[in-house]
């Protein structure tokens, strides 16, 4: 395990210390060491945006704290949901009296901890509504969409939800925009190597050299197929043909395409993959209104990538175009 760490059981603590020091203009600590917030949160008059999840997915989740993005994040151990208490404290850190939109991914631990945290917040009179990302197509058939995991599509959900909240929208409006974002978003992942949780010290799943796993989850959850490693173009084709029919995306659709690395795949290769994805969408008459290519949602040092496509309407376009300032996503207005 070739890692730059100290005590393997304290990687999250050490990382959070560095993260706070590394972003003095964006990030503030809170009384709960497992909750970070936007320096200016709670923002008066604004619905608070909260998310949270296990660590090891940088920039997710703390990297999306910022202006027009997420207000507070509950931080879990590596690949392990934050506690209910941490979610509850994040709600408190984000709430300016206008309620909190908790936008998170569909994992058993997160569902349970958010559920319990919501009950705690309700006792304080904090209104919390949730959107549960379930963009990962291969994780369940479309008839059981509520069982699907949330993956890199969460980034677009946060972007949309954060932008909507920044317009001064009500909690119901923020929730409905974020829900619309994720309802129109589909993702698929491909894994080329496993990853190792530092405290465990060895990979807890395997992908043999020369093989790839299509449909893999962000923690190594099983995919739909293990095959010989294919070319970037073939991988793009397999991914696109899992995503497009599911919504379905159709000719004339305008989309956001997000290609994210899983951690150790060189960014160069993400552009190679994106190049073919863009060609394939183009051939189907689907246009890319805004592309994102980079390491947006990773899995420690896994090799591989996720492809996410979101169908846009006018509201989503406006929200996606809004200026944003966070470690994981910084963009100027309309650029």
């Amino acid at each position, binding site marked *: 395990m070739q890692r730059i760490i100290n005590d393997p*059981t304290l990687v999250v603590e050490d990382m959070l210390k560095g993260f706070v020091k590394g972003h003095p203009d964006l990030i503030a600590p809170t009384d709960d060491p497992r909750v970070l917030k936007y320096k200016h949160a709670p923002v008066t008059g604004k619905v608070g945006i909260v998310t949270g999840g*296990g660590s090891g997915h940088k920039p997710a989740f703390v990297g999306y704290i910022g202006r027009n993005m997420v207000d507070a994040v509950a931080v*879990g*151990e590596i*690949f*392990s*949901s*934050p*506690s*209910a*208490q*941490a979610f509850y404290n994040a709600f408190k850190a984000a709430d300016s009296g206008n309620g909190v939109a908790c936008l998170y991914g569909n994992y*058993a*631990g997160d569902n*349970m*901890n958010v*559920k*319990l945290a919501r009950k705690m917040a309700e006792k304080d009179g904090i209104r919390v509504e949730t959107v549960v990302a379930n963009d990962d197509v291969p994780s369940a058939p479309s008839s059981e969409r509520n069982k699907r995991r949330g993956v890199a599509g969460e980034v677009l959900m946060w972007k949309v939800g954060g932008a909507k909240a920044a317009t001064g929208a009500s909690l119901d409006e923020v929730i409905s925009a974020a829900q619309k974002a994720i309802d129109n978003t589909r993702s698929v992942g491909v894994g080329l190597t496993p990853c190792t*949780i530092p*405290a*465990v010290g060895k990979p*807890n*799943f395997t992908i043999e050299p020369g093989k790839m796993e299509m449909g893999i989850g962000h*923690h*190594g*959850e*099983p995919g739909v197929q293990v095959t010989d490693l294919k070319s970037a173009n073939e991988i793009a084709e397999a991914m696109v043909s899992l995503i497009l029919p599911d919504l379905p995306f159709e000719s004339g659709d305008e989309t956001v395409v997000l290609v994210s690395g899983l951690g150790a795949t060189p960014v160069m290769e993400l552009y190679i993959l994106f190049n073919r994805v863009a060609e394939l969408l183009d051939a189907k008459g689907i246009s890319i209104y805004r592309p994102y290519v980079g390491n947006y949602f990773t899995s420690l040092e896994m090799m591989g990538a996720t492809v996410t496509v979101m169908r846009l309407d006018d509201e989503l376009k406006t929200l996606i175009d809004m200026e944003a300032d966070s470690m994981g996503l910084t963009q100027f207005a309309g650029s």
Partner: protein
Amino acid sequence: MDTLSANTGRQILLAVVSAIQENAAYLSELDGATGDGDHGVNMNKGFTSFRNKLGDAPVTVSDGLSTLGSTLLTEIGGAMGPLYGTLFMAMGSACENESSITREIFADMLTNALNEVQDLGGAAVGDKTLLDTLVPALEAYKAALANDLSFADALRQMTAAAEAGKESTREMVAKLGRASRLGERSRGHLDAGATSCYLILNALATAMIAELS
């Protein structure tokens, strides 16, 4: 001879804590075979933190269980924090304000715990989780009460059923959580959560039997 004083909380909770602390490495090893090998670490972290909070003061059974539950909820995330947190909170709240715990109250405690855990986690018997221990344990306990067995004997029946339930996970294919990645390959291994649940129920029962008056 068939009730438990509410003031025995300290002894009983300490027994549960010890069971987890002593078996931490074993639980991680079990989890390593099909999961990510951290179950013992996670559990030990929460239970030890509770132990430190407890200090030297006496505590009622209800308060002890509730504090353990809230500690797990606060300090260990994942799925185990909320599940065991809820389990102990539910047990604690079912005997709140009782000066002594009868065998019927203990049935309520277990029932409440099972309901809340099932409600929260959505797992069912056969999914290869801690419910494969908890469900048969409660059934055996209730059957013992229906047969009018003593509190101690009912607890013994519960423990035996918990152990059998835990053992039953060995032949199951995991349907939830990390281990489900392995599909058929998860067969042949005890489930870590089912094992910790057995260890907890066994420690609880043994300590309670010793304290019955």
